[in-house]
């Protein structure tokens, strides 16, 4: 479904993403890990159209999507959350989600109807009339996830949505992700909590200094000497 071939991006002299090949299939959960500065967020920005690529190609079901702008990519069906959450602060929880739903809805009332069900599903219905700015950071991250899901995408990229959650809340999120995957959606998940990403991902991709150094099952990646070196070589992983 999503295919990256030789994707490269440089900032000045620094090659942030270097010749990365990547594939995400329908209904697949792919974990993206790597030490700080490995290029995970840059890669996210390239896939979602927030940054233009220098070389290579990115296609969604065969259609090129690179360098077409973030709104184009979102309408094509790849949406994201942000590492530093970006909810619409002066809108209510329900309105936030409705804005997401609007991209596929024929009318505003229809978007709100859709938003109602999404808000409930994400456990935000008790706060749906609350302004986003009054929510905790964790709830706002959940809200961003809900907003992304409301666009009815083919794939969601989650950039550290679990950070700061309690183990119980993490379990809730993981269950939700599994349920959504069973609808045929795919996930690309960036996460620093290893137990989480190892547990939920069907496949793990490891980036180091912008290059892909491993791509395989969680088991295989965890035992890959290159991966161990990448983490331990920088003073231990997290």
């Amino acid at each position, binding site marked *: 479904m999503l295919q990256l071939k030789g994707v490269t991006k440089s900032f000045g002299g620094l090659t942030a993403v270097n010749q990365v090949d990547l594939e995400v299939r329908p209904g697949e959960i792919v974990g993206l890990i790597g030490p700080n500065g490995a290029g995970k967020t840059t890669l996210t*920005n390239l896939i979602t159209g927030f940054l233009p690529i220098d070389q290579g190609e990115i296609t969604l079901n065969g259609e090129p999507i690179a360098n077409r702008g973030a709104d184009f990519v979102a309408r094509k069906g790849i949406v994201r959350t942000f590492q*530093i959450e*970006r909810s*619409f*602060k*002066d809108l209510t929880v329900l309105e936030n989600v*409705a804005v997401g739903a*609007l991209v596929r809805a024929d009318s505003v009332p229809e978007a709100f109807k859709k938003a109602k069900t999404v808000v409930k599903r994400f456990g935000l219905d008790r706060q749906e009339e609350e302004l986003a700015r009054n929510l905790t950071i964790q709830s706002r991250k959940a809200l961003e996830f809900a907003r992304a899901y409301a*666009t009815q995408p083919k794939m969601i990229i989650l950039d550290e949505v679990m950070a700061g959650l309690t183990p119980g809340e993490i379990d809730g999120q993981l269950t939700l992700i599994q349920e959504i995957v069973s609808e045929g959606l795919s996930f690309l998940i960036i996460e620093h909590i290893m137990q989480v990403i190892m547990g939920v991902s069907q496949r793990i991709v490891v980036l180091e200094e912008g290059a892909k150094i491993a791509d395989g099952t969680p088991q295989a990646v965890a035992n890959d000497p290159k991966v161990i070196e990448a983490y331990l070589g920088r003073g231990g992983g997290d």
Partner: protein
Amino acid sequence: MADSQTEARKRSGLAVLLIMLVSLLPLVVQHGYVLRILIMISYFAVASYGWDVIGGYAGQLSLGQAAFFSIGAYAAASAYLIWKLSPAVGALAGVGLAALLALGLGSLVLRLRGPYFTLSTLAAAEVVRILLLHFKSITGGAEGRVIPYTGFNLSALQFATDRPYYYIAVALLALAIWTSYQVSRSRLGFQLAAIRNDEDAAESVGINLMSAKVKAFVISACLTALAGAFYVIYDRYIDPYSTCSSEVSVKILLIALVGGRRSIWGPLLGAVLLIPLTELTNAYFASIRAGASMVVYSIILIIVVLYAPDGLIRVLRRRPSRGAVTLQPGPKGRNSHASA
């Protein structure tokens, strides 16, 4: 459901009462000057509702609304004086021209975020004024133009008393309020809400920033141009300084800020408070120092930003604050998504 029904009934009852009050007002108001103030309140409110679409809903602080105001005014005046057309036709042409300018200008400068957009709109209004001063044969240059009064003439929109102007102004006001209401609940309205909160997040859910912002700018320009056209039809005098100065732009913006942005009644409340105040300061201070009203505006702006950043309408309603309280729209850190 029952709640919203009684609410709706209460609202429509209130609306009927309001319409009756507004239509009977000129019969009660005997003093000509008071009626004149009511007319000014109406057309400045129209201009301000126009500003609110781009400055309020979209959160793009335009300081160049005077450009659209002038285009509407000069189109109405020129249509009548040069081409012997009804100024109403000129007004419509002016609205069209203002829309075109907003489309062209917006497509260029709405890419800029924050203060850069504001500065470009300021510059655009300056350019329009310089052009108006330059093309003397059409605009009359700095001396301006007077539309001679030739007695009652419906097609020239010339009336013996101020009452017909009052009703036209109130009708335009109703149109502006309706437009604001429609924008607020439309797809565009929600897209603009997303954009003023966070442009990157808005893009991430598929909103085309340029398309939404340019639409808002065009609607904004149309309403403001309409106000300008009415202004010249009513006042029968026009010159570049009174229609295309930064003072006009500031006045239009301040009315919405003081009354309350993104509110159905905010700009009207702002006009009701500010227009009489402007008239008073002009009357008292004009002989002492020209531009006294700008000093008064500045003081009002400081007070409002400090004590009622969401506008007075929200103080009256005691509604919890909703909406960016800063004058600076847009996300705080641009491109911060690319930095991590």
